[in-house]
């Protein structure tokens, strides 16, 4: 980069440690409070302000979330689901972010945020419908302030921003009332960061100072494409171009993810506007159950990241410091087993939609035209009755 100097030394620094990030530790900017070895460390700006009970709670959340994931993966293998988007390895990123939210905060997920759904109180069984093909989202977003999964990459980041603009108009930002002040989290992936919509969301959020946290799980892959295809500098720095803070947190460290997300949410609720949080993590599984990652990545990489497992490090921490006993771990295992059974049984019992149901909810106000089409189809179906069709 010989000509670099022409533009002054301050510009050179934007060319960060690119083309290395997958093996990289996340760099010095990575906020970490619990090392892969399970050691608590302190950070000059972000601290974990909850008690041991909360850490046990996070551990339980992560184990149960992983159970949802393994159970659903198994259900897919048995043909009960058409496809499943695994979150293996991303439990800490999701639980940290989910637990940082207050009830009144609203989450806009992509399609892999099963852990966030868990934190927001969505019955994981409801997550299966979409992947089984019985519905396109089996929960009411307003029940738990958890939006529907969005398949078109990035689209929901604009919805999140608009929703946050609505909160501003409702006077639910910056009042100082902790029950009232609200914020939004938009979840998306590293690949999504390349979509025009996501960048427009940054622009609108900055322009209106909207209370939204852009929470990007950089799991290093967008299907087969490594992060280097989407950015040549650390992704959290994207925010700098839009005039709001960007932070990189160890997404496999649930304590740090919690602390950083909470600070960003506080800031948003307080009326300070958007923040970009890059949760630096790794997609340990395939993109979905139909993907074959051996075609494009080295098992070496995966092995490297196994050492950073988000659950193992909390387990070590709890055990080493005597913060949880065998009963606790057994209890969580028991809960996980029950959750698994709930999913296995519930999944098969999810009712198939009927063909005529597809005519409902196309509009809030049904049209005569469509009603006629539905009735015609009903007559057609009825014509087969008795034919053993």
């Amino acid at each position, binding site marked *: 980069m010989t000509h670099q100097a022409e533009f002054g030394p301050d510009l050179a620094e934007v060319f960060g440690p690119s083309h290395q990030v997958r093996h990289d530790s996340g760099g010095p900017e990575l906020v970490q409070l619990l090392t892969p070895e399970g050691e608590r460390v302190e950070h000059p700006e972000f601290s974990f302000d909850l008690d041991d009970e909360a850490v046990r709670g996070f551990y339980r959340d992560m184990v149960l979330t992983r159970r949802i994931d393994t159970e659903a993966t198994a259900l897919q293998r048995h043909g009960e689901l058409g496809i499943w988007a695994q979150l293996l390895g991303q439990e800490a990123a999701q639980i940290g972010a989910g637990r940082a939210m207050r009830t009144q905060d609203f989450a806009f997920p992509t399609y892999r945020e099963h852990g966030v759904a868990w934190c927001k109180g969505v019955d994981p069984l409801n997550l299966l419908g979409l992947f089984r093909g019985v519905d*396109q989202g089996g929960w009411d977003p307003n029940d738990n302030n958890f939006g529907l999964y969005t398949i078109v990459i990035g689209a929901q980041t604009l*919805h999140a921003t608009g*929703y946050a603009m*609505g909160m501003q*108009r409702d006077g639910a930002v910056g009042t100082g009332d902790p029950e009232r002040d609200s914020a939004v989290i938009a979840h998306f992936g590293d690949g999504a960061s390349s979509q025009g*919509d996501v960048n427009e969301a940054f622009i*609108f959020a900055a322009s209106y100072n909207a209370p939204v946290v852009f929470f990007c799980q950089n799991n290093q892959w967008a299907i087969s494409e490594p992060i280097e295809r989407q950015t040549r500098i650390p992704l959290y720095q994207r925010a700098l171009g839009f005039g709001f803070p960007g932070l990189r947190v160890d997404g496999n460290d649930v304590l740090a993810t919690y602390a950083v997300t909470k600070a960003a949410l506080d800031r948003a609720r307080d009326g300070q506007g958007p923040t970009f949080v890059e949760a630096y993590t790794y997609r340990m599984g395939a993109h979905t159950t139909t993907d074959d990652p051996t075609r494009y990545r080295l098992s070496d990489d995966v092995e490297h990241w196994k050492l950073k497992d988000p659950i193992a490090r909390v387990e070590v921490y709890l055990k080493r410091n005597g913060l949880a006993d065998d009963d606790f771990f057994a209890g969580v295992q028991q809960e996980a087993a029950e959750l698994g059974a709930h999913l296995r049984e519930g999944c098969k019992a999810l009712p198939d939609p009927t063909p005529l149901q597809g005519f409902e909810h196309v509009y809030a106000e049904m*049209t005569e*035209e469509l009603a006629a089409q539905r009735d015609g189809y009903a007559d057609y179906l009825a014509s087969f009755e008795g034919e053993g069709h």
Partner: protein
Amino acid sequence: MKITLAKGLNMGLRKAMEDNPKVLMMGEDVGKLGGVFRITDGLQKDFGEDRVIDSPLAESGIVGTAVGMAMRGYRPVVEIQFDGFVYPAYDQIVCQVAKINYRSQGRVPMPIVIRIPYGGGIGAVEHHSESPEAQFAHTPGLKVVSCSNPVDGYWMIQQAIASDDPVIFLEPKRQYHADKAELDEDATPDPLHASRVIRQGTDLTLIAYGPMVKTSLKAAEAAATEGRSIEVIDLRTLSPLDMGPVLDSVRRTGRAVITHEAHVNLGMGSEVAARITEQCFYSLEAPVLRVGGFDTPYPPSRVEEEWLPDLDRVLDAVDRSLAF
């Protein structure tokens, strides 16, 4: 009170904002400037920047944030500056706005109005004169309407805003200041999704909407001087189509011509023609003929009047149908 279409729309928007504090305006230049056509003139002054929102220059962003606002309980009215600039928002419109009510099984309705000044004849450069209605009407979940006159403008925009479904609201920009009509604010308007016979006749049914309504009425008058009785229908609603009045009419006249500025190929005319033929097969004395923009890009403005269907081309089709 005599008003133009531009005025009717402006008054209708104002009324909707007065009636419901959840109604918001969003778009490029809709605030201080009042929009490049001044349709939102004065609204920001009276309702504030929180309700009349000048947006960054990004159509997908405008529509996408409107979706989020609707989820939060607002009723955003989005202005797309010109027809040709709606396409950056096409994905948000057809994949999100159109589908979220369905996806959520009715839990998350999308009461969004997307206003689009459309059609040609104003001497503009590329992308400022297009007719994208078919590209929306093909998409389930969207409702698509077009007003053709000041009074409809006033009522239909309010009805669209009151609708719990997303409405693509097409405004024939060439008509904004073309004519004035008497508005009776106490009248009871027709429903939003109703087509309307605007001139009665017995020999042929001429079907139009938006900017071609005026031309069609003139064509009917011209034909009348030659002793031909043309019934003219203003479709008003493009999705859903209100075929009742159309079918009634064609059953009586036996002949139909449909006209629009959009390209003929896969334009609204193809759907209307197909439906008429399906449902009035034995009444038809001639195939339904279509008169529209050619299947070429909208041309440079010096030849736009030749490109656009006009009185002569409509009458030519009427003649061909009657001679069939």
